[in-house]
């Protein structure tokens, strides 16, 4: 039986940052509007537990082995540790959490959260991913982050002190007004801390965010030009590789043995059960997702489904396999794709493969297809060929 991955979404934040397009909400705003009450954490954890219970029984998942659990957000570290522990306990009651399973939680730097690390470790969380973004206070202010560079370092140290041996840092580059040197300084500072894993993203301007609105009006200055941005990508790859990190995805790096198994499952088009507001699931060829607003989610518990989609053709399944899997530097195995989707990828996308190989974006290594360095930078141009 293929083990399952479980995702728990915790949508609460202290502040909604200008660039963020995740399903997250400033807690204070929710309280002011009356969307949640003072018992928000308990109510939310209760709803998530009911969500998991009803899905597990409806889909016949009870007792399934679980390989990864991921608390994402939002800011899961803002959530009271006892409530997180309660959710984990309920998972253990319903599933077989495998020994050595990856149990990860996203944290933002900040005194209040750091204090919870020990309790979370105690509850069984064994991987912490810290949303550091930058070590520069100026850059952090521009991103509307609510912490300083020193807070970020301190968060890392307290996670270590709490016993975490698998820590990931989130880093961003291409921040407004950031130069190549400053971006490099951030990468070096991150390396100096010695995390097991690093995600280093170029800032993406998303529509529907504050940054998106500013950008559309031409008011978001200081974004790097293409040459500078490319230099940042190159710098990141060079510094991290020299420090012993292996790039395994477009924006993800790890020391040997520390790739994020939960995210690998997404990119390999594995199955997962999502609980929490706006969480998505993919089970037996069906995708479904929950109501995004926390109040709607809490009220709807029992059946929080907001939408669903059935992947009903082998062609679509194979297309998704490449759309997701080509983000990984290992690429996609033709045989594995054929086995999991029940059709021959070359029969469906043979023409696309040749075209992409000819234009130098894709390469073949035995029975595996993967993006070339050029293809990694033009991934959107490649991936859209598979839908």
């Amino acid at each position, binding site marked *: 039986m293929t083990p399952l991955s479980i*995702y728990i979404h915790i949508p609460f934040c202290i502040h909604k940052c200008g660039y963020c397009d*995740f399903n997250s909400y400033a807690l204070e705003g929710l309280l002011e509007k009356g969307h949640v009450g003072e018992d928000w954490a308990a109510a939310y954890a209760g709803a998530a537990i009911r969500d998991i219970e009803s899905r597990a029984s409806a889909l016949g998942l009870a007792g399934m082995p679980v390989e990864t659990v991921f608390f*994402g957000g939002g800011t899961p570290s803002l959530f009271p540790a006892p409530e997180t522990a309660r959710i984990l306990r309920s998972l253990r009651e319903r599933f077989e959490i495998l020994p050595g399973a990856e149990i990860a939680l996203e944290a933002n730097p900040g005194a209040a959260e750091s204090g919870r690390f020990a309790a979370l470790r105690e509850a069984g969380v064994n991987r912490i991913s810290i949303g550091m973004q930058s070590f520069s206070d100026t850059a952090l202010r521009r991103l509307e982050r609510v912490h300083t560079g020193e807070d970020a370092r301190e968060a890392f140290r307290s996670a270590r002190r709490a016993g975490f041996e698998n820590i990931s840092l989130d880093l961003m580059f291409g921040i407004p007004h950031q130069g190549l040197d400053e971006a490099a300084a951030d990468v070096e500072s991150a390396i100096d801390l010695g995390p097991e894993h690093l995600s280093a*993203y*170029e*800032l*993406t301007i998303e529509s529907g965010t504050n940054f998106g609105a500013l950008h559309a009006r031409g008011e978001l200055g200081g974004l790097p030009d*293409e040459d500078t*941005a*490319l230099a940042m*990508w190159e710098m990141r790859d060079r510094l991290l590789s020299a420090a012993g990190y292996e790039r395994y995805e*477009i*924006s993800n790096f790890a020391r040997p043995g520390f790739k994020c198994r939960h*995210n690998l499952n*997404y*990119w390999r088009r594995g199955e*997962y059960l*999502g609980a929490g507001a706006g*969480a*998505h*699931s*993919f089970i037996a060829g069906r*995708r479904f*997702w929950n109501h995004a607003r926390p109040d709607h989610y809490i009220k709807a518990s029992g059946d929080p489904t907001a939408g669903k*989609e059935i992947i009903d053709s082998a062609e679509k399944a194979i297309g*998704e396999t490449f*759309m*997701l899997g080509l*983000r990984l530097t290992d690429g996609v195995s033709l045989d594995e794709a054929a086995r999991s989707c029940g059709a021959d990828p070359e029969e469906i996308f043979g023409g696309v493969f040749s075209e992409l190989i000819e*234009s130098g*974006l894709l390469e073949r290594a035995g029975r595996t297809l993967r993006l070339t360095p050029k293809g*990694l*930078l*033009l*991934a*959107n*141009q490649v*991936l*859209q060929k598979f*839908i």
Partner: protein
Amino acid sequence: MNLNLIRNFSIIAHIDHGKSTLADRILEITDALSDREMSSQVLDSMDLEQERGITIKAASVRLNYRAASGDSYIFNLIDTPGHVDFHYEVSRSLTACEGALLIVDATQGIQAQTLANAYLALEQDLVIIPVINKIDLPSADVDRVIAQIVEVLGLDGAECLAVSAKRGTGVPEVLEAIIERIPPPGGDPAASPRALIIDSWFDSYQGAVPLIRVFDGTIKKGDHIRFMATGGEYQVLSTAAFLPHLAELDSLGPGEVGLLTAAIREVSDTRVGDTVTSAASPASEPIPGFKEPMAMVYSGLYAADSGDFENLRTALDKLHLNDSAFTFEPETSGALGFGFRCGFLGLLHMDIIRERLEREYDLTLIFTAPTVVYRVVMNSGEAIEIDSPARLPELSRVDHIEEPYILGTILVPSDYVGPVMKLCQEKRGTQRTMKYLDTQTVELIYELPFSEILFDFHDKLKSVTRGYGSFDYEHLAFRPSEVVKLDILLNDQPVDAFSSIIHKEKAYYHGRALTGRMRKLIPRQMFEVSIQAAIGNRVIARETIKALRKDVTAKCYGGDITRKRKLLEKQKEGKKRMKSIGTVEVPQEAFMAVLEVNKEGS
């Protein structure tokens, strides 16, 4: 029907001088419509016309008017199109009349179209009633306008009527003047019928419906009729008129204006200017003046999605039922595939067709840059006319090329004569005459290449004369010209759809502007794209679009695969709206860049 109680007339005017407003007042006084219906200008019925404020298709209404004398008259008010693209239709409408109301704006005086329309009416021996409109405006100068009318048109100043069509002032006097001054129609009710087609449109139930003016004889239900120019024969199913609501009539006799239905398939079977007669005992001579509609501007028309080719053909067929003035025939472009070469009366006409195709048939279209017809004289002496740059023969076989010229009439306040002459010079014009119509108004007559006035001449004229200059033209003749074919190459491959024919002296500027514009319109591709402008083998301009080096969503995790796929789908959709030329993806707008460059440049 007593002919003495019929009056047939048109209202003619320069644009915005108040033609539709006066027509509305006349309808109001003759009680043709309720007040509620008067809320908008009734004669401009098509949506497009309303939006553009231009009367495109002629329409006609039959009104009952009780005169001061107590007699009841029938007025046939025949509308005329108000744009130079439709010159011929105006002349046909006027043929159907015995008189015309010539409206002149009291604040602007005589303008170019006032003159052009007045000349057309005089050519037809119509009685002209000069009507000076907008006398309620503070800047109205009635005396000056009367002086102009006397001086320029040679009409009697005492005959000028001063009105405010907006307020209704003076309009009753206009109606009485129509009775007193415009002669009743003549015609022999017993003769073999002869009726002129003034207009025609397509009705999905009745088929093509011609609007006719009867000169001799009578046409009624059951009659077998023949169209003398096209030779088509039909049986009349009904006769009717707009009162202004459609009402059936027993027959249409001499002097009457109305429409007939006869299960006619296409509008092109009912040509404006054709003569309707009896099939059994036809008239010996048609009413003179019939001309085939002549397309003056040509453009290649392609569906953005080549899968829509058949839909485009169907749409063109249908549209052609309704508008026989545009022509289309299949053509093949190396760059765009299968499409049609379409001919239009002018750019306005082209715009109307484009909008109707996109709106009524939901097609995404690519129009290539419009071009005039060139006459190519071969070494052998043979002359051919080409409507597409792609059809220009091998130059070694060509003796010379001729381009169409127009005779342009420009009326302008004397202060602006200098800038207008400069503009005409830039447009390769030759002055024929210049005369003062009065102390302030100058009439300039220029011979100009049609291609030069096609795009932006009118806008430029308005801008150099602060809106006071006006312009009208008629087609003149082909003249030898130093034109060259300007090719555009994408990655060294010539793209036929981008070629244009242009005067030698302007080619360099044009090539640079065009390549520059296209560099902005064509998005970056995964390889470098070069855009070159060339005359023959000589490259005169070059631009480069750098290869796209980075297009990657850095952050992609979390389980919302549906959304990720949708984002990529959206990006892919954008590409679908582009046309692949070789390996280069080109957006629709790039094909019209030629037009924009013409508008921007000199």
